């Protein structure tokens, strides 16, 4: 087959996908701002997306903080390691690892669940049924998930920050024999409000990505069980990649000066 034909087809398919995603995102955002609002559904989704993700995110943060403390200790100069470990763990967790790893874990958990649920609703015509019952599927299904994810992700990441720093503290004081008081003082002295805030802003954006990717792939799934499976995989993969890409862009913007 002609090579140019293959390249052309891939490019066209990619552009079509980007176009469809942009239109979907625009529709979702425009419906967020217009009534009616389904408060009960938003609360329900906050519970499912936020609260039930707590154990996964907390464990991830704890072990990451601990491993980070060990790496800095082994790799660094052992003379002033006590100060360096505390500082780098605090900055690393709040600026990058808390939001990114938290976002990726929630992407795996929540994007997949959303895509599977909405995908099944699509192939069993439940989404069409909403339309025939004078209920806009964007308002009823997409908006509550997006709003809930954007609100709960920063909260989750804030908790992850605390637990991650605590992971570093536990490893530092128990395995590396640091003084607990000095560790806490170093953490508090070097950690600035902006460090935490930048991580929370990132988390809000990641929440948006997670919910929109889950909804988009669920809405567009077709072809029965296999189609729903494909939608689920695509939701997790695209959400994860977009989170990492968005993280790079936001780091370069937020820490430019």
């Amino acid at each position, binding site marked *: 087959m002609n090579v140019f034909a293959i390249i052309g087809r891939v490019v066209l398919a990619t552009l079509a996908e980007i176009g469809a995603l942009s239109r979907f995102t625009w529709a979702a955002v425009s419906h967020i701002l217009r009534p009616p609002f389904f408060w009960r559904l938003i609360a329900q989704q906050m519970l499912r997306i936020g609260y039930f993700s707590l154990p996964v995110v907390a464990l991830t943060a704890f072990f990451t903080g601990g491993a980070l403390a060990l790496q800095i200790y082994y790799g660094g100069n052992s003379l002033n390691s006590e100060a360096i470990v505390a500082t780098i763990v605090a900055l690393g967790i709040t600026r990058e690892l808390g939001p990114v790893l938290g976002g990726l874990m929630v992407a795996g958990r929540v994007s997949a669940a959303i895509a599977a649920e909405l995908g099944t609703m699509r192939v069993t015509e439940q989404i069409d049924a909403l339309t025939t*019952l004078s209920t806009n599927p964007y308002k009823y299904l997409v908006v509550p998930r997006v709003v809930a994810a954007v609100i709960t992700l920063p909260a989750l990441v804030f908790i992850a920050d605390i637990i991650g720093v605590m992971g570093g503290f536990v490893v530092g004081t128990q395995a590396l024999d640091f003084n607990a008081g000095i560790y806490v003082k170093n953490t508090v002295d070097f950690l600035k409000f902006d460090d935490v805030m930048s991580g929370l802003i990132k988390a809000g954006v990641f929440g948006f990505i997670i919910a929109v990717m889950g909804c988009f792939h669920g809405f567009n799934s077709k072809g029965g069980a296999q189609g729903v499976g494909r939608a689920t995989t695509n939701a997790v993969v695209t959400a994860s990649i977009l989170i990492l890409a968005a993280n790079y862009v936001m780091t370069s913007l937020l820490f430019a000066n």
Partner: protein
Amino acid sequence: MSDAKIELRNVHKRFGKKVVLDGINLTVPKGESLVVIGGSGTGKSVMIKCVLGIIRPDSGEIFVDGKNVLKMDSGEREKTLRKFGMLFQGAALFDSLPVWENVAFGLIQGRKMPRKKAKDIAVEKLAKVGLGAEVGELYPAELSGGMQKRVGLARAIATEPEIIFFDEPTTGLDPIMADVINDLIVDSVKDLGATTLSITHDMASVRKIADRVAMIYKGKIIWSGTRAEVDNSGNDYVDQFIHGRAEGPIQMEVLKP
């Protein structure tokens, strides 16, 4: 035609290279029951979804009560959608909600009725399709196929719509349950005085619920007439279809060994 409730004029729709609707012309007079017959994949479902606005046709006009639904803004369209009820092929019940809330969905979400009042109406509608109030507390997954169809019918008539669509109402049911559904359709429609458009390939259903019959083939309406005329239509396509013969002008795309 001033008494036309629904009118499709020269409606075209294609998916990629596949032409699904190739200039559909169809009129459903007010208060009548029109049944569209045709084989699988002839465009029956797509036609109904075009009228509901779930799928946008490529060209043509669709009128409901004399107004072109394709030129409406979203507010007008939502108002028009309130006139519709629909029974889906797979019932398309919301499996996250109990049965009564499924039936009451259009009342609670679409009409903003208080939940308690809506529940009373839901129980009443369930009784109409021969289901007790205790069924209302179950979830759709706990019901048999026939019961799900009956709940779907109760949901379709709950808002007392002016127009009801039936998408293969008897497909997948045993002959006796199919007849029960047909009777319920006839009774509930008579009660409401609704205009109905059904699509099916079940001739027993056609003979029971149709005032008029139209046959769709390759995206076009190739014949229409009253229920009595079906048996001597003089149309080879209709004859082949209603007698279920493999030989005739309609050739299935089956590779012969």
